[in-house]
């Protein structure tokens, strides 16, 4: 077994992707002028959030997310042993490296600050969280209010009569800057609570592991399950709409092949109109919901791709007609959760431990709703708005001939957009044609070629020499990276494995069935009842297919991966973080998923 992954400097650029580095901020690619540092670190590909090549503008959220995460560890709360998570792009893929604090004296010095700062948040969690809800809604409102319109032929008369002394061109550029600022602000909010939430959960987790050395991770996770969270609300809304469709007998409309035809059929009846108005009520905000991780402009948002939610409604109505209960068994989950908590409590050796157990579980439950919910507000709702606004701006420039399509704007870097806007504004101001159409036409073609070449490359799971032990708590919690899983990758990477895959025992139970390997949300429709879903990862908007599959296998993620959480909620076995599931397993192969032991076996070729 190899003892290290390739150095980032050994990785070659795929043919046709030469010059890819220029598609990203200059600080993102690995670079020889800081090779000593970069070669000394361990980097893993973040397939949880960025499983695919990032287009230039999409790298914005990558940068904002990682800098914001890091800022809270390093500068706000002074997490004693952890600075931030450093980030790079290699051949278009995201690679992360947790940065620890090495000097024990420095760790010691950070402790009192952490106690004071984190302590404040833990003590005031409820009121700060409520305040956060107000802040995030305010932020989204502000993003929604930004409008990107083509510059007018002539300024409105009021601009003159009110003596404003400035015009639409300035406003357009200002709005873009404002949007970018709001995006960074959004990501600061994202990490205001998250790391602290993870820390509290890890503390509870660690306690359970000490008290019960062999306790399965998922038993611990189950003790905080069953919280009513907004993240599940979009799916709940679909179920509500499906029930309405069946009750008011308009469910046949969903058999039409396209969303437009469904809507047309619904418009034709009173009951259909009622359904549509209920749809509108649910859609804002709940269908600002992405079918991917939310980090790519190509992730399809339900509001804009009605075929996705309508398809789910159709599946649900079919189940309802068969008399199947489509509700999430929340009461059963809670009863099970309470039983588990009681039994572990009973098995603890001392009353002192029981008190500590209750206290730590209590805090874990206080923080958990945030840990779940932020995802809807940030990655789904806010990102949906941000992509929409960017697309609106792309439309303005496309109309001027800068691009062929609205989405082409995502081929520009964040800081190139102001240049294009300047070109557009300046030419508008002067009254001459802009250079943009000629310049971007060529350039975008080149970029598209590079991105296509990058997409055909397959990124290694990690780079550099693995640490003996992964100690950075968030890396363990969020990405499921441990000394153990890294060793697993090394073994599987050089083919020394025995054909079976090992991952996290993320949700209990054993299931066998034919595999269905899918790589993106577009393929969700291919999944047949009883199949075992094999995917790089799953996203919240995939929720409706969990009602018909037998088990889930993912390449990335740990105990708190989306697939893990949802499978526990649905009572399906899941193995996450197998690293090579989608590469090893082929659609149609019979596989066995053992969610108790974290193994996946291919039963027949």
């Amino acid at each position, binding site marked *: 077994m190899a003892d290290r992954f390739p150095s980032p400097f050994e990785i070659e650029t795929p043919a046709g992707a030469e010059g890819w580095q220029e598609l990203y901020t200059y600080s993102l690619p690995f670079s020889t002028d800081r090779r000593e540092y970069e070669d000394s670190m361990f980097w893993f590909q973040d397939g949880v959030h960025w499983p695919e090549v990032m287009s230039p503008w999409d790298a914005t959220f990558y940068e904002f997310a990682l800098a914001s995460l890091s800022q809270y560890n390093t500068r706000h709360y002074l997490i004693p042993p952890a600075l931030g998570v450093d980030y790079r792009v290699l051949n278009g893929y995201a690679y992360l490296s947790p940065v620890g604090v090495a000097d024990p004296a420095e760790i010691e010095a950070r402790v009192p600050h952490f106690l004071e700062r984190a302590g404040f948040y833990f003590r005031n969690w409820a009121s700060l969280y409520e305040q956060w809800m107000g802040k995030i809604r305010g932020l989204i409102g502000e993003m929604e209010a930004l409008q990107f319109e083509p510059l007018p032929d002539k300024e409105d008369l009021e601009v003159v009569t009110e003596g404003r002394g400035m015009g639409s061109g300035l406003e357009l550029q200002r709005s873009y800057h404002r949007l970018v600022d709001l995006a960074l602000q959004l990501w600061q909010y994202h990490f205001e609570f998250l790391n602290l939430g993870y820390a509290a959960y890890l*503390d509870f987790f660690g306690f359970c592991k000490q008290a019960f050395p062999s306790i399965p991770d*998922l*038993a611990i996770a189950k003790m905080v399950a069953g919280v009513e969270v907004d993240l599940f609300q979009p799916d709940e809304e679909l179920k509500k709409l499906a029930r309405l469709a069946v009750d008011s007998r308009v469910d046949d409309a969903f058999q039409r092949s396209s969303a437009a035809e469904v809507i047309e059929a619904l418009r034709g009846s009173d009951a259909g109109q009622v359904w549509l108005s209920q749809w509108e009520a649910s859609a804002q905000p709940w269908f600002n919901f992405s079918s991917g991780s939310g980090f790519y402009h190509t992730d399809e948002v339900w509001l804009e791709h009605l075929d996705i939610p309508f398809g789910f409604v159709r599946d649900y109505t079919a189940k309802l007609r068969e008399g199947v209960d489509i509700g999430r068994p929340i009461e059963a989950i809670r009863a099970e959760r309470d039983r588990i908590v009681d039994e572990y409590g009973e098995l603890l*050796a001392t009353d*002192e431990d029981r008190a500590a157990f209750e206290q730590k579980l209590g805090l874990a439950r206080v923080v958990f709703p945030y840990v779940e919910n932020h995802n809807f507000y940030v990655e789904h709702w806010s990102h949906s708005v941000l992509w929409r606004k960017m697309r609106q701006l792309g439309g303005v420039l496309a109309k001027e001939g800068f691009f062929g399509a609205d989405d082409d704007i995502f081929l520009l870097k964040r800081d190139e957009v102001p240049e294009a806007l300047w070109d557009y504004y300046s030419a508008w101001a002067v009254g001459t044609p802009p250079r943009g159409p000629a310049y971007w036409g060529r350039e975008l073609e080149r970029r598209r070629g590079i991105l296509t070449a990058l997409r055909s490359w397959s990124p290694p799971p990690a780079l550099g020499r693995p640490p003996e032990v992964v100690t*950075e708590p968030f890396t363990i919690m969020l990405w499921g990276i441990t000394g153990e899983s890294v060793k697993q990758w090394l073994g599987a990477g050089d083919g020394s494995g025995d054909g079976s895959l090992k991952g996290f025992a993320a949700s209990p139970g054993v299931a066998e069935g034919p595999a269905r390997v899918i790589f993106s949300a577009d393929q969700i429709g291919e999944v047949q009842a009883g199949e075992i879903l094999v995917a790089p990862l799953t996203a919240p908007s995939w929720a409706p297919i969990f009602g018909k599959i037998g088990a889930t296998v993912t390449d990335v993620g740990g105990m708190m991966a989306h697939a893990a959480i949802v499978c526990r909620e649905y009572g399906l076995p899941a193995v996450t973080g197998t690293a090579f599931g989608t590469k090893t397993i082929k659609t149609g192969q019979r596989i066995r998923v053992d969610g108790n032991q974290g193994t996946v076996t291919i039963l027949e070729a």
Partner: protein
Amino acid sequence: MSYVRWLDGYDPAERARLGGKNASLGELLSAGLPVPPGFAVTVDAYHTVRGHADVRRAVTGLLGEVDLGDAAALEELSAAIRRRIEEVPLDDGVAAAVRSAYDELCERCRAEAVPVAVRSSATAEDLPDASFAGEHDTYLWVRGPDDVLAHLTRCWSSLFTARAIAYRRERGYDHDVVAMSVGVQKMVRPTASGVAFTLNPRDGDRSQVAIEAAWGFGEGIVSGEVTPDSFLVDKVLGEIVQRTISDKAVEYRLGAGDRVERADVAAGRRTAPSLTDDQVKAVARLARQAERHYRHPQDVEWAVDADLPADQAVTLLQARPETVWSRKAATPVATAADPLASIVSTLLSPLHARDHAREGSDAPGP
């Protein structure tokens, strides 16, 4: 006088009339645990014999004079007393009560002449300071009422085996205070059997049940001749979290003439699991139930009875307190009283690092 008590419906107030073994089986049953059905012949029946003038004379007259150091003399004395007890004609009331109970047992088991174990259950057994383990006789595969009655008197007389006499004398027990009840319990015909601990013997984790299982009777496991299959079941989740299926080359099974014989296991079964997943879970559930009942980790013996319907086939044969881990003083896990201090220590020493320190360095070197 009542000479017979069924093991189910056991009343702890009657412990003195049933003896240690019957009482513990009765208690398992009253905790809702499936042990093979049976009845106790109470000490009242024993007293019909013990009260007989010949026996009284033999015991009080002979016992006073024996020299414990003289093994041969002790054996001779024991034989004489036992003979005297077994020669006493059985009281009609006792015989009738036992015959009718045996008939009813056959009916309950839906079998004719159901094979039973006839077990001594002395009133001084399983005391905190004296186990009396193995002091008295047990007879297996007894069939038919006449045989049951014959073995009943042998169990009674086994109160006076040489070793029992010596043991009581050493411990200062009065021979007259100890009495003998006898248990008559359906024999189990195990497809598989084994032991279970209600904790993980490797790390003392009380949230797990460790099970060892092999084909047939438990002799192979006890003697160490068979490497058993082993299972680890999470008590709380009710899931099998670890399994090791061993190559089980031999098994002990019932042969001709109700004899347990050692036999080679056919190739196909050797590496097959000796328990189904449902059976593994059932064993774990029963062991956990016993632990709950006794409020202490248990060490149990169990078997899968071929005579019982599949969903009731897993049977508990014995439960006793686990001693190895339970003796260790309970040390609290919680280290820091202050929640925030605890979070800091978690951050400073993440769990995977702690595991690493505990398990030694098996990670690739630098």
